[in-house]
């Protein structure tokens, strides 16, 4: 679902960040960030490690102390109680319980997110998302016994099971093999087609081509807010990596 915030020139925005200022460890990690994420798209948040991606995503889900500016999600201030069922969040570390099985992890989050639904719905929803992240064969394995990539897919399943309107995913494809990465990006595209909004971070520039839109971040500043095709056209680069370098060089001149 989307908000009916129809700003001129842009589609309805699911996330609006305005003048966001975040200080961490005494440093201005995000000095003054303004951007918006259109609804119903897969938006890639790309930038090198330490550029402030996780910090921005934490601000969007409302767990980051901010020094200034506003973050609005689906028309409400980030972190509002009304958003807790509508926004799904996957942390970079893949926060799941290592001493629970895959199934028990997903069922717990299914229960937390599915107010009013019966036990059978919870069980069915959990099994469905475990299938969607391709872990059905591992459903009864303890999360702590999985590989890093499998564990991060458990974490993803725990967010998907609430069927949120906005998904905030912090580097969900890191450490996955190419086939799985392709499948996950296809899953994200499918969710966006159903009207979900996805904000997905990655430090791997290659992933740019999988996104509908791109936000390029460097040292807490927005380098570009564009589409993959436009990025290559504007910079004349052959790939996203090269385009990023050209933007950095251009900004430095």
């Amino acid at each position, binding site marked *: 679902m989307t908000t009916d915030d129809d700003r001129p020139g842009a589609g309805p925005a699911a996330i609006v960040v305005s003048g966001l200022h975040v200080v961490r460890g005494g440093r201005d990690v995000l000095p003054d960030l303004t951007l918006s994420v259109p609804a119903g798209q897969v938006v890639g948040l790309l930038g090198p490690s330490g550029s402030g991606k996780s910090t921005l995503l934490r601000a969007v889900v409302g*767990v980051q102390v901010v020094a200034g500016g506003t973050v609005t999600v689906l028309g409400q201030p980030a*972190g509002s109680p009304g958003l807790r069922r509508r926004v799904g969040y996957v942390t970079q570390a893949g*926060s799941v*319980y290592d001493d629970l099985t895959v199934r028990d992890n997903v069922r717990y989050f299914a229960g937390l997110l599915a107010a009013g639904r019966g036990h059978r719905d919870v069980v069915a929803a959990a099994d469905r998302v475990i299938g969607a992240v391709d872990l059905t064969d591992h459903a009864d394995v303890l999360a702590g016994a999985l590989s890093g990539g499998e564990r991060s897919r458990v974490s993803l399943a725990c967010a998907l099971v609430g069927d949120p309107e906005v998904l905030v995913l912090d580097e969900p494809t890191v450490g996955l093999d190419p086939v799985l990465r392709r499948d996950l990006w296809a899953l994200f595209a499918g969710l966006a087609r159903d009207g979900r909004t996805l904000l997905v971070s990655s430090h791997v520039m290659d992933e740019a081509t999988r996104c509908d839109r791109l936000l390029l971040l460097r040292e807490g500043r927005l380098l570009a807010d564009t589409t993959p095709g436009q990025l290559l056209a504007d910079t004349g680069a052959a790939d996203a990596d090269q385009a990023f370098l050209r933007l950095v060089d251009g900004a430095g001149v």
Partner: protein
Amino acid sequence: MSPRLSALTAFRVLRQLRADHRTVALLLVVPSVLVGLLAWMYSGTTTFAVVGPALLGIFPFVVMFLVTSVATLRERTGGTLERLLTTPLAKADVMLGYALAFALVAVVQAVVTVAFAVVVCGLQVAGPVWLLVVVAVAEAVLGCALGLLASAFATSEFQAVQFMPAVVLPQVLLCGLLIPRDGLPTVLRRISDVLPLSYAVDATTALTRSASGTGDAGRDLLVILGFVVVALALGSLTLRRRTA
């Protein structure tokens, strides 16, 4: 706050515990082994009749303090707490979930330990035995509540474990186990008056000494519950939705 979400969280904590057979075995067996050891040490004297009941209140407190402070510290540092607080789960649900789960474990622990003390070690209990179990459970919940609170001040599991000697040992020394609280120097006596463990030992002592001690034990229980509520409330204040 929602009873459903608290219960769901308690259930999840119990499931986590279930995966850890060794911890469960230690939780259930170690108190009985220690009570048995004491009964053996003091066999032939009347000391066990004095020390035994006190230990029934102290063990669950110490054990649950440790288990809970480490478990919730993991939740804080592992990122799962950050994630939980972006869901409809309230902070109080997190606290209550843990308290409920460990209270349930404490019931089993207390039944096993009290049964062992009474049946195998021949501990004489003048008051109702079930009330002794209730005191032990209340102490366990108190340990759990203080453990939740302590975990807020630790940044590693090493630190969390160090809160044991810092928070728990002084209470064990002053609670009336080593010498009756009446025999303490006045200042220490006053300090022991505001330490929750003292009330556990008062309650178990009252219960085992005479059948008329039930009323005193009831009052001590209320004091312990007061401490539990305050510790849980303070603990949920230490859960921050937004962090730096």
